[in-house]
């Protein structure tokens, strides 16, 4: 079994019931699996939630994670997005210092990364940025650390390309 650890994005559909999220979170902590991020919300069918878990592990570990997730009684379907082509996106909100001297510079940086300024205050902008995790990291790195007042990230959401569809 390959011991090489790789980042995987796992999508799953589960019953939208109280406690379902903690079953998944509990599984990861109980078995010592990594969670980089976990996002969850109801789908267009309100009885189902869709969860995106970003994790990392060897091939064998990922195989076990998928099997263990499938074993949870509330989990309807599991898909390792890395098994095919997929798109991932993450949303970040960043509040940055935007005092007179920096206001234009901030606006430019925001444009370069195709972000949007969604709130403007006397000394600050709030920028909305969407993209892969790497892109969001790159934006943060390109800013002067002292200019960052606050950041919040959603964690990645993923979806298969084309006719790769996760649905019941």
């Amino acid at each position: 079994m390959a011991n090489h650890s790789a980042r995987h994005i796992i999508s799953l559909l589960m019953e939208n019931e109280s406690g379902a999220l903690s079953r998944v979170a509990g599984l990861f902590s109980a078995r010592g699996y990594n969670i980089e991020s976990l996002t969850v919300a109801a789908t267009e069918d309100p009885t189902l939630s869709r969860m995106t878990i970003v994790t990392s592990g060897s091939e064998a570990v990922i195989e076990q994670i998928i099997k263990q997730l499938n074993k949870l009684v509330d989990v309807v379907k599991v898909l390792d997005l890395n098994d095919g082509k997929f798109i991932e996106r993450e949303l970040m909100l960043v509040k940055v210092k935007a005092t007179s001297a920096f206001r234009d510079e901030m606006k430019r940086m925001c444009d370069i990364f195709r972000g949007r300024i969604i709130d403007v205050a006397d000394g600050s902008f709030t920028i909305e940025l969407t993209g892969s995790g790497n892109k969001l990291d790159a934006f943060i790195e390109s800013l002067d650390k002292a200019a960052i007042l606050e950041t919040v990230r959603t964690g990645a959401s993923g979806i298969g390309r084309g006719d790769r569809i996760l649905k019941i």
Partner: protein
Amino acid sequence: MEQSSKKITGAEILIRCLHEENVEFVFGYPGGAVLHIYDAIFHQDKFKHILVRHEQAALHAADAYSRSTGKVGVALVTSGPGATNAVTGIATAYMDSIPMVIISGQVPTYAIGEDAFQECDTVGITRPCVKHNFLVKDVKDIAATMKKAFYVAASGRPGPVLVDIPKDITAHLCKFEYPESVNLRSYNPVTKGHLGQIKKALKLLVEAKRPMVYSGGGVVLGDASAHLIKLVQSLGIPITSTLMGLGGFPASDQKFLGMLGMHGTYEANMAMQECDVLLAVGARFDDRVIGNTAHFLSNPRTIIHIDIDPSSISKRVKIDVPIVGDVKSVLADMNELIATEKPAQNSDALAAWFKKIETWRGKKCLNFAQSTEFIKPQYVIQKLHEITKGEAFVTSDVGQHQMWAAQYYNFDKPRRWINSGGLGTMGVGLPYAMGVQLAHPNAQVACVTGEGSIQMNIQELSTCAQYHLPIKVIMLNNRYLGMVRQWQEFFYENRYSESYMDSLPDFVKLAEAYGHVGMQITKPEDVEGALKEAFAMKSRFVFMDFITDQKENVFPMIQNGKGLSEMILAEDL
């Protein structure tokens, strides 16, 4: 389907659900949050409620009822401490995949989250050690939830399912309607194995030079014993079993090499290490079975694995031919293939393989030095086997006595050996014996235990008196926590840290205080007579305190981190 337009209470609905499921026994202990349920129990007589003396014992007894019958065990506990006391029993059943439904009371819905008296987050606490659990928030959901609970517990890889019911819900009124079937879109356990894989597996087995079957608890739980026997006999290949699988294949058969693993036989462990094709059936390659994984894998072999749980496959060891399915169904398919195809085997190679196995068997690794001075624990088990003609249900606790019972009782039938394999819970022995004796009132039930384990649930002597359970306790009393002492002797230079049991009670008097028969046996020559005398008292609970050799150890033994072929044998010392 039970239908009535009359509205009844949630508690009554719950009882009706248990009737629908043909529950014979509910093991439990009352308390505030389950008072409505207990009142409903008072008004019925279809199942018998067994009042234990501690909730942990209710769980173990229900668990053993299930292990010995194959039916779902049912336990009922109150909220808070009732539920937390039950956790050890739930985790024990979970580790060994035992189908159970546990009903726990909860504080009323309006008080949940307010730190009410005897409140705890039972669903949260038990989540990691149940197959599934439910919190019922509406009286209308009780019947459907109970139906799901029994279905989930018993299907697929079985396991305990907990249903937490707030007190107010058990008082609310509703019509009773028990669903005829369950459909869970998120839960569809596989039963039939893939025929292509089964064919591939059979081809490997018949072409093998050194084939071997490694059978586990799944064979017992899946009632696949007859199919396994047929397969092994028609292929004529050697077989070993895990602790949990004992009885799945008759120990008295020449093809049976004994238990494998940490305290497995020399022949079983050597054959496991040196086979070229291994068929694992309902077993999970755990650390106590294969020892050091790297060492195990250092000998190349092709591994076929039949298991109902896909996550058991390639979990610790990479499997070459996985077959996900119910072991009984897969073995039946294999047997059918053999019957129709009559595949030719490599009989010369097989004969050579058995010859090699016989040389390993020739080591007689389970021989022990008999003594005229001290009672040897192994001797007690041998005599127990003889006197009960190998027909008894044997429950055990956890430790040296458990290993000796497993090694020397030679189980020929499944569901006769009842012990905590996965979790290794001390204290299960006596409540296990209760569950077994209630399920099989006319059977001989022996609880093989030690003076350490028995004291972890000694209060159940009272339950045994209340229900007149004629259990025979075979206590191997070496005044040590024997297995701990054995490890301290081997790995901690005889520093017996806290493993000596001082201030033991007078067990004879203790048994008598509960109205039982107590016996103390100190001389080897008295062992046989005492056992005969005890088992002759068919209607009495007999507590036998065997004062055994303090220094006896369990052999063979694979030390932690060592491989299967690196056993320490009694003769090496």
